[in-house]
């Protein structure tokens, strides 16, 4: 009985400290993958020790590397929220990339062309608000298509990504093109509209802590508000939620708007805080966000951790690539993909172990002596 007793304890612990288990899972996955990749690299002839030290130093060895990693994590966190919030509500928003681009281009347009005479104090906040709003509306478009034309959100968001991509290309070739260039490229945003840098000589703009605040805000929204409860219930079982009187459709619209807003904000922060101008290839943070959301288990705080992890990985791999080791950039992507795969595998494995135990008859409190018998989960 010792083994089953241990399982009982483990299960109780799993329920009460679910996040610790998840975290342990993530750490285990990372360790496994790193071991795997490093062994692979050693076989091919790279020195694993040199790579790891380079990687660690490049990502977190000092204030400057650390801030770069955080700056890299910022858009990942926001697009991760865009995917995670909506997935949790049962809406498969794959369109964070499009929402991200639309948000960025709105901010660029407002700061460089459409608001030239505005007072400097107004332009930046206005651009931020408008960028987030544009991202939200872009996401909402998919929900509207589903509501009135029965187009699945998965499909429409993917397709809207392409629409967004070509839309910004058209804008960057047309009204938003910088003068004196033939490239699809916007003019430089006036420096007064840039997001302020919090740590001198680094790129650590205040959008980064703001993004983390947004994550905390959504964690609170999910766990403490009725709307958070409603979206979760609607995501798990729309039919039951509907019958219980939850306005499922309205909540899905809301969450889609909020998620799109996050992705739009990611675009705004990226363009106002990091690049300061926009080209047609503006980064794939939207797609990476889906991976971040999955790694973070759709929990805003988990997504924040996952984004930091991805940021460290990306920045570190850039340093390794720039160094004499000349490790190809692709390795970082391989590691990211493998970590997620292992996370999901471990998660599925644990879920099966857990299921095998819980699907058997449940323990009734030994003191209860009524008629209806202990619940038998299988019946």
């Amino acid at each position, binding site marked *: 009985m010792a083994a089953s007793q241990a399982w*009982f304890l483990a299960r109780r612990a799993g329920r009460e400290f679910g996040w610790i288990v998840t975290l342990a899972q993530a750490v285990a996955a990372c360790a496994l993958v790193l071991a795997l990749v490093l062994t692979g690299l050693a076989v091919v002839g790279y020195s694993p020790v040199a790579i790891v030290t380079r990687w660690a130093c490049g990502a977190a060895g000092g204030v400057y590397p650390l801030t770069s990693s955080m700056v890299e994590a910022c858009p990942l966190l926001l697009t991760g929220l865009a995917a995670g919030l909506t997935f949790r509500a049962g809406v498969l928003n794959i369109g964070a990339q499009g929402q991200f681009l639309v948000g960025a281009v709105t901010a660029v347009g407002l700061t460089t062309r459409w608001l030239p005479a505005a007072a400097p104090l107004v332009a930046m906040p206005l651009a931020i608000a408008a960028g987030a709003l544009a991202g939200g509306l872009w996401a909402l478009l998919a929900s509207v298509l589903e509501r009135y034309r029965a187009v699945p959100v998965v499909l429409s968001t993917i397709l809207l990504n392409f629409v967004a991509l070509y839309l910004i290309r058209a804008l960057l070739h047309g009204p938003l093109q910088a003068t004196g260039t033939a490239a699809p490229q916007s003019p430089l945003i006036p420096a007064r509209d840039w997001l302020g840098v919090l740590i001198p000589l680094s790129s650590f703009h205040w959008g980064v802590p703001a993004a983390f605040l947004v994550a905390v805000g959504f964690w609170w929204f999910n766990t403490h508000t009725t709307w958070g*409860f409603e979206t979760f219930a609607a995501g798990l079982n729309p039919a*039951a939620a509907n019958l*219980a009187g939850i306005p499922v459709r309205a909540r899905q619209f809301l969450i889609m708007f909020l998620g799109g807003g996050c992705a739009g904000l990611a675009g705004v922060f990226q363009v106002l805080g990091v690049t300061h101008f926009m080209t047609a290839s503006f980064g794939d943070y939207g797609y990476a966000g889906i991976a971040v959301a999955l790694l973070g288990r759709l929990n805003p705080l988990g997504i924040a951790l996952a984004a930091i992890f991805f940021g460290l990985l990306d920045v570190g791999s850039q340093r390794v690539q720039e160094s004499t080791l000349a490790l190809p950039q692709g390795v970082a992507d391989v590691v990211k993909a493998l970590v997620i795969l292992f996370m999901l595998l471990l998660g599925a494995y644990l879920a099966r172990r857990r299921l095998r135990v819980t699907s058997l008859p*449940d323990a009734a409190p030994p003191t209860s002596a009524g*008629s209806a018998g202990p*619940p038998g989960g299988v*019946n």
Partner: protein
Amino acid sequence: MLEWFDLSKRFGAVTALQGVSFSIEPGSIGGILGENGAGKSTLMNILFGLLHPDAGSLRVDGRVVMVRSPRVARRLGLGMVHQHFKLVDTLSVLENIALAVGRGPGLIPRRRLGRQVQHWADQLGWRLDLTEPVGRLTVGQQQRVEIIKALCAGGRWLILDEPTAVLTPQETENLLDSLRALAHQGMGVIFISHKLAEVRQICTQVLILRRGRTVYAGATAGLSVEAMAQKMIGRPLEPLTRAASSAGLSSQPRLELRAVCAGGGRRGGETLQRVNLSLQAGEIHGIAGVAGHGQDLLVRCLLGALRPTSGEVWLDPALGHWRHRVWPGACIPEDRRREGLIETLSVQSNLMLKDYRRRPFSVLGVCRFARWRQRATELVERFDIRCRDLNAPVGTLSGGNQQKVVLARELADTPPLILAVNPTRGLDVGATQFVLRQLLAARYAGAAILLIHSDLDELLSISDRVSVLYQGRLQATAWPAASRDDIGRLMLGV
């Protein structure tokens, strides 16, 4: 001869089975009775190789066998018909059977298998279109496919887990006849149920389990239904008491359907034809009828999910307006796992699924979880919901307890209007009584209750008025002046 001796099985601290023995001869039908959680499913899973007993042995034809997996069970001739069918909806009847019979890769022996299937179907007097996709068959027909599947796979012992829970009265009769026919041909049949009358009707031997222990194992003859019930639940079954109808307390109805028509259309199927119905405070209005005669449409019209093609649904203005498409009262849906509960969510959240938006459970959109907990604890106590812990996912509870969660949520605050659809589906005797009592209690408290139920006896036991739905037409009866047989005839349209 299929026998088992002293089977025991424990899960952690819980004893699911303790020293259970029984035997069945070929050519006879044995019954296994027990409430939800009594150990029936554990026993079945052991027989079918999904679980392994801690102690005890299993013998087939006098040979001790170890059933390590369902595959071994099948090879030994044990055929299982699960309560929830294991069929692929999009595949044809023949393909589904081929799935179970098939051995390794290769072509499906359509011709040979088809002959075999036809042979069994003829033997049992069933008509089956082998090319029909299973998803288009009725539940009764799907069950036949399951039975033939088990037979074609070489089953000599047929184990049926609550086979009549989903069937209409006629289908049930047919099934029982077929099982008798199978027994005549030398098959051994194990019939698991908690419908006592059926067990008494067809089983020669019966095994009654309570909390994992044998309460009775022996001949069915000489055992009355009451005695069986008493053995099963461990105390005498109290009769339901229903005071004289208090209907008409208020002449003003709370809900009316006026000449409502719905359904039909291009795809055919169920219709509602000029349905008139009124529901008053303090009454239970029962809608009897064989499933598939428009109950589904009626429910969807009431809940606002479907707009009638003509006619009107009228609600007491104090309750709300039907136009808002929100059912203003309580609803006990037919499929609790799909519509009544969110299985992966905790018991507490499921109990609060309606009240969460009310003060004091949330203030300005912020949840007050301490209040939730307080309320959930109170409901669990009041409705005697057996759960280890309020945070356990509701899907881990037994069927009866799941239904209690639904009842607790819906009925706790004496709603003015209640719609209950097959509220005792899949529940054992004790839980069924509990549900019916709760509905009666709500009636005394002044609720207007519309009860759509396919179990006629239960329906008649608590309804003040009874109407019958047949092919989309609703016909009032003179119940309680009318007899049960009259109502039964109306259900069959004769």
